[in-house]
Structures are given as C-alpha cells and as structure tokens.
C-alpha cells in the first residue's frame, strides 16, 4: 500500500524513513506546522485564477519516488551527491535548510525525500555545466538541493524536473555563494500537464558574489514558484531570468524577490510570460531596497503576452525603495501581439499563424539567451514551440 502524506506524518514511520539522519520527526512536524500556518501570499481565486493556494489539501497525496540523476564525472574537489549520502557524510556541518522561508519551502522541509548536494571548493572553476535531473514517479516528491560555492569558485548548474502523470513536486533549492563566487542555476520544469508543482529557490550571495537564476516553467497544471535573492553584502551581482507560458488551463504563479539589505550591489530581473487558451498567470516582482542599502542598482522588467481572449496574466511589479542614492528602474508591459508587427511579417509572405508563432517565440528569446547551455536553450525553444502550436 502506498502511504499517504498524512499517514507519514502521523505514524512513526518518519523515524525509519529513508532520511533518518538530520531531518528528524520533530523538525518535520515543525516544518509542517509552519507550512499550515503560513499564508501563501498568493493570488486569491477570482474571475480568472481558480485555485486557492491557502486551502490546498495535500494530505491525501501518496508519497512517490524521486529519481535523482547526477553527473558521473566531476572536476577535482567538486562534490555532487545524493541527499541521503550527503546527510550521512556531512551531518550538522552544513547549513541544511538554512535559507528556507515561506509556505512552500516549509512543505519541502517537512517531507523531503531526496535531492542533491553540490559543493564547489574555493577557487575551483567548473567548466562544464553540472546536470541535476529530478524525476517524480507515482505521487508526491520533495526534492531538496543545496549548493555551496566556496570563495572565488565558479559553477554552472542545469536542473531538469520531469515526472510521471499526476505527480506532485514541492522542491526547494538553496544556494550559498561565498565571497567572489559565481553561480548560475538554470532550471527547466517540464512536468506532465496534470502535475502540480511548488518550488522555492533562495540564494544568499556574499560579498562580490554573482548569482543568476534562469528558470523556464513549462509544464504542470499548477505551477507555483518563488525565486529569492538576499543581498546582504556589497558587490553582489544578482540576476533573475524567468519565463513561463500557461496554455490550455494551466495556472502559473511566480514571485521573484530581490532584497537589498546592504548597498553597492546590483540586481536585474527579467521575466517574460505568455498565455494562450485559458492559461492563467500571476507574477509578482518584488524589489526591496532597505534604508541602509545605499548605492544599490536594481532593474526589473517584465513583459506579458496574451495570445487568446481567455488567457490572463496579472503582472505586478512591487518596488519598495527606502534608501536614497539608488538607481531603480522597472518596466512592465502586458498585451496582445502588436498588429503592426504582425502585418509587417504577413506582408512579407508569412501566413498569419506562422507570423504569430514566430513573434511569440521571439518574445521569449531575451530570456532564453540567458541560459548558458546551448542544449538547454534548444530544449526550451522546442517546448515553447510545442505550446505555441498546441
């Protein structure tokens, strides 16, 4: 009998779970309580958006199997291992769940059943991207990824998330980029169209570190994501590039947050979204510049393209600027395909639907180009093309 999540919490099976070490029963129960009491802060159901994220009952899901594929060969000193092994090997010496906050991060914390640790030693430059592949099989899975990039190291991570029909994925990823480290984390989510996914991504770069999140949320019926960068030091370069594209009756809710607590850092957020069919989306782009964060430069740009009359995207840039002497810029657009662009292309011989398709795909290119691996770029393009054609 596959066990449900409720049973898993209530019975003492946790003690004997596959991850007995570190995440003990009490910690899980605390995290679950946190999940229950934390408001989602997300879109309320209404005319367009149909799902109440605060009333989601997950207790009936069956626990699934998380398949984790990691690279076979790695640069010297780099560690990339399964989470269970990492808990065994490093015990309390690593900052497990040290950055987690928010409702859905707590959910992963409560049920974590697999994941990966990536450790890059000081000064190490990993030339090849590190591929981390997650596959959710038959039920609910809770992957946790911890990345620690030591001083002046450089690493490029490409995460891929797939799964079987009807799966449920609550993923948490934390990135610690130490002084002068450069981390790029690309994630491509291609879950089946009846899946649900909640993902939380949080980075805490130190002085002069650079972090780039590049995410493509392509699949799932319900996709709720958050991407956070906490700028607690000077000289940080933070970049968030995100794209999503709900079609049919997919729902996507993305929140990005760059929190400038200390000044003299720079952040860029670029979000491109399209919706077709009855696709629904909400994007909330937070930029916070706290009173002491002088000399901060923050940029936020999001563009939303509506490809059908029932599609809807709410796009809300939210800038809280409490410091003087900062440069903050934001720009947002929402609209249908521009008729003049369309006519330009059609007048050169392209059929209307071909022209619309080209414009819609081109619209995502500025984000796609930020994915550093050619393979990923082509995969994202192919997935978007399939959606535009659908």
């Amino acid at each position, binding site marked *: 009998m596959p066990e449900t999540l409720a049973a898993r919490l209530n019975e003492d099976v946790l003690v004997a779970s596959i991850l007995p070490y570190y995440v003990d029963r009490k910690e899980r129960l605390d995290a679950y309580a946190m999940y229950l009491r934390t408001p989602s802060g997300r879109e309320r159901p209404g005319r367009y958006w149909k799902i109440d994220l605060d009333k989601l009952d997950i207790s009936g899901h069956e626990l699934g199997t998380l398949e984790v594929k990691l690279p076979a060969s790695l640069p010297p000193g780099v560690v990339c291992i399964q989470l269970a092994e990492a808990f065994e090997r490093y015990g309390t010496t690593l900052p497990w769940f040290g950055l987690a906050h928010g409702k859905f991060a707590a959910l992963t914390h409560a049920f974590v059943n697999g994941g990966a640790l990536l450790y890059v030693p000081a000064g190490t430059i990993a030339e090849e991207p590190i591929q981390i592949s997650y596959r959710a099989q038959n039920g609910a899975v809770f992957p946790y990824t911890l990345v620690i990039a030591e001083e002046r190291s450089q690493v490029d991570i490409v995460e891929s998330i797939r799964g079987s029909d009807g799966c449920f994925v609550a993923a948490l990823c934390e990135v610690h980029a130490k002084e002068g480290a450069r981390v790029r984390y690309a994630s491509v989510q291609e879950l089946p169209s009846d899946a649900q996914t909640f993902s939380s991504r949080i980075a805490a770069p130190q002085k002069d570190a650079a972090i780039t999140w590049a995410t493509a949320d392509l699949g799932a019926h319900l996709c709720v994501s958050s991407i956070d960068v906490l700028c607690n030091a000077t000289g940080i370069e933070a970049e968030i590039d995100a794209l999503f594209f709900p079609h049919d009756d997919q729902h996507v809710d993305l929140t990005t947050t760059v929190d400038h607590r200390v000044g003299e850092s720079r952040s860029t957020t670029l979000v491109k979204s399209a919706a077709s069919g009855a696709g629904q989306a909400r994007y909330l782009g937070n930029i916070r510049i706290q009173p002491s964060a002088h000399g901060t430069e923050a940029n936020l740009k999001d563009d939303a393209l509506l490809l059908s009359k029932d599609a809807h995207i709410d796009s809300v840039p939210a800038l809280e600027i409490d410091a003087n002497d900062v440069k903050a810029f934001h720009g947002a657009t929402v609209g249908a395909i521009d008729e*003049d662009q369309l006519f330009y*292309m059609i*007048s050169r*011989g392209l059929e*209307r639907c071909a022209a619309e398709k*080209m414009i819609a795909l*081109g619209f995502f*290119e500025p984000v796609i180009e930020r994915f550093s691996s050619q393979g990923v770029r082509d995969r994202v393009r192919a997935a978007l093309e399939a959606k535009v054609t659908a």
Partner: protein
Amino acid sequence: MSHSGLRITDLRVNVAENEILKGINLAVEPGRVHALMGPNGSGKSTLAFALTGHPRYAVVSGSATLDGQDLFAMSADKRAKAGLFLSFQYPAAIPGIKVSNFLLATRNAVKPGDLPPAKFRQLVMEKMDLLDMDISFLGRYLNDGFSGGEKKRLEMLQLAVLGPKYAVMDETDSGLDVDALKAVGESVNAMRADPSSNHTGFLIITHYPRILQYIKADRVHIMIDGRIVKEGGPELANEIERSGYDTIREETALHA
C-alpha cells in the same frame, strides 16, 4: 499580355470611417518606375497599405490587379506570394526574430524551395555587399535598435532578397545618407533590368526629387487630398521641389 502590370482602378479607401483615398487610378508596368509625391497626409501610405492588405485600411470600392490577379480577393500573405512587396515608411521592430531567420522564412514563403541553402546564403551576401551592410546585421533582431537609415537599408535588403514583381517603396529614401541612396538606386536599377527578378516594377513614394537622380522615373504622379491631381515626366518632381504643392493646388481648384 495586356493585363500585366500593377493596375489600380477607381480606388476608394477608408481609414477609421474617414474617406482617405477618393478614386485612385494608376498602373505600373513591369520594369517601370513610377514616383508618387504629395504633401503630408495626402494618402500615399494609405495607398501602399491598402494595396498590401493592412486590416486598418478598408477598401470601399475600386480594384487592384497584379498581372491580372485580383489583389483584394487575396489575404496579405497571398499578395506577397503573388509578387507584391511594400518597403515600409516605418518598419516595425520585432525583438527576438533574427534578420537571417526572417530572410529565410520569407524567401521560403514567397518562393518556396527555389534556392538551395548555399545559393540562398550567397544571394544574401551579394545583396548585403551591394547595400554596404555589415554581415553582423544578420544576427541582430529585426529592426530592433536599428537607426532610421539602417531600417531602410534592411527594407532594401529584403526587397532585393525576395525579388518581387512589383515593389512599393514608401519613403525609403527618407533618412538615408548619400551613399545609401546611391546603393538603393543601383539596387532598384538592377532589379528593374534583371529578368531573373521579373523586371520588377516600382512605385516610389517620396518627398524629394533627389532619389530620382539615381533612379530614372518613367512617370511622376502627384497626390493631393486622396486624389492624383497631376501626372508628368521626371521634370514634374523638380517643379514640385521648386514651387511646392500650392501652385498645383490652385490649378486643380481652378479645374474643379
């Protein structure tokens, strides 16, 4: 063939319920160059858009045929496939679509499979060379961040690569420097003379006689307030340059 040519007969066009074109008659034969001049707002671009099928321009009455085919019975893309090309006065910028991809997609649309890829590349290179364009333009997004003159050069490049039967050039000369103007002239002259590009016929919309120093116009038409009020040889362009449209306005008023 008696019905060859781009033939416009008694054309009336409305824009947003306003009558803008009030009965236009004009015919462009293959390999011929017609210049269309007229004050701002007289309806020149309206004519260009109505011919190419822009949805905002409503044809009220009249006809337009391209080598005998009824243009107004065709969708805009079919008109391009039939051999009509418009060089836009204000070309749209389309981020995310590379010039190289667009050239290939449009050539395949209007002349499917007529050139093997190597030959196509060669054609593009030749035309870029002729227009003095750097090949780096191929990797840029369509008109995105292009200067005014660069946009016009890209229009000319597309015109040369697509090789239509008839081309309407809407103020392609505005914003071009002298060298570019010369290059445009050479390109047009080559196309009208070239049997392999169908002896393209041109309708050149312009405010300045200067471009006609490089391209010999067979006929000059003057449009005022949605009507062609005067026609003549190339010397008519210089007359306009000298004395503006007022004299013509007065003449037409007298005739009316």
